């Protein structure tokens, strides 16, 4: 039943997580930063589901479900904040937000 090794899942997960981290650090646009964050969350899900496939368990899948639900919340709140920032300050790049007090 176990034809795919666990290491393959972990390698894919790690590579995608690294790409997400690079995206968060190097992206200038606020929305693309959030999208890189979604990529990193997906990478964690791959690791959890791959460990489940290896161990023959379902607990990792339950945590993947929780992560998907929390990612939906994070996207809603994050995009709301971005729209509020855009409406108040007319900026869409992360280096233009310099003041704490609007």
């Amino acid at each position, binding site marked *: 039943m176990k034809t795919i090794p666990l290491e393959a899942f972990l*390698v894919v997960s790690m590579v995608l997580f690294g*790409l997400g981290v690079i995206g968060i650090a190097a992206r200038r646009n606020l929305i693309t930063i959030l999208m890189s964050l979604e*990529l990193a969350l997906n990478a964690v899900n791959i690791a959890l589901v791959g460990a489940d496939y290896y161990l023959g368990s379902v607990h990792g*899948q339950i945590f993947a479900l929780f992560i*998907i*639900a929390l990612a939906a*919340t994070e996207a809603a709140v994050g995009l*709301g904040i971005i729209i509020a920032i855009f409406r108040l300050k007319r900026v869409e790049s992360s280096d233009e937000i310099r003041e704490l007090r*609007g």
Partner: protein
Amino acid sequence: MGSVLIFGLFSFLAIASGIGIILLRNPIYVVVALLSSLIAVAGIFFVAGAELVGALQLLIYAVAIAVFYIVVISAVPWEKAKKTESHYRFEGTISLPIVLLLYAEMILVFALGVKASPEGKFRAFIEKLGNTEVVGAILFSKYFLAFEVVSLVLLIGMIGAVLIGRKESQTYEDDTP
């Protein structure tokens, strides 16, 4: 053998789309790359036998969240973003060796031969009942409190998003014209 091939195909698609997410300039293209990556990850879930998580990945991520991003991108005028630079070149160059260090650490761990211990306690149940039923049974018994807390978090997130995103000038001190 076939599952390894399909896994490799989906992994390649996911990683190629991930590279597209961090390299493409136009936000709309980035959303399309994100959508492709999410669908490939759902394919990986299906290969791994997690049908419920794969289906929810397609339903929630690839439909709801991706459409949400597209709606926000089309609601906000991004003319300035196309004129200016889309990346921090210096910070990206700095973060690259750190991530490569992470990859080197992974290679080191696998070279040292770290293995997880196979247990396989639930495999008989999964084969007998099917993945979705087992996930539901454990989710609603052992993780029931966490499930309820997640529903509270979703409610609070919804209220917060509505409060942040509404149009009311009394809430914020709006100095901009």
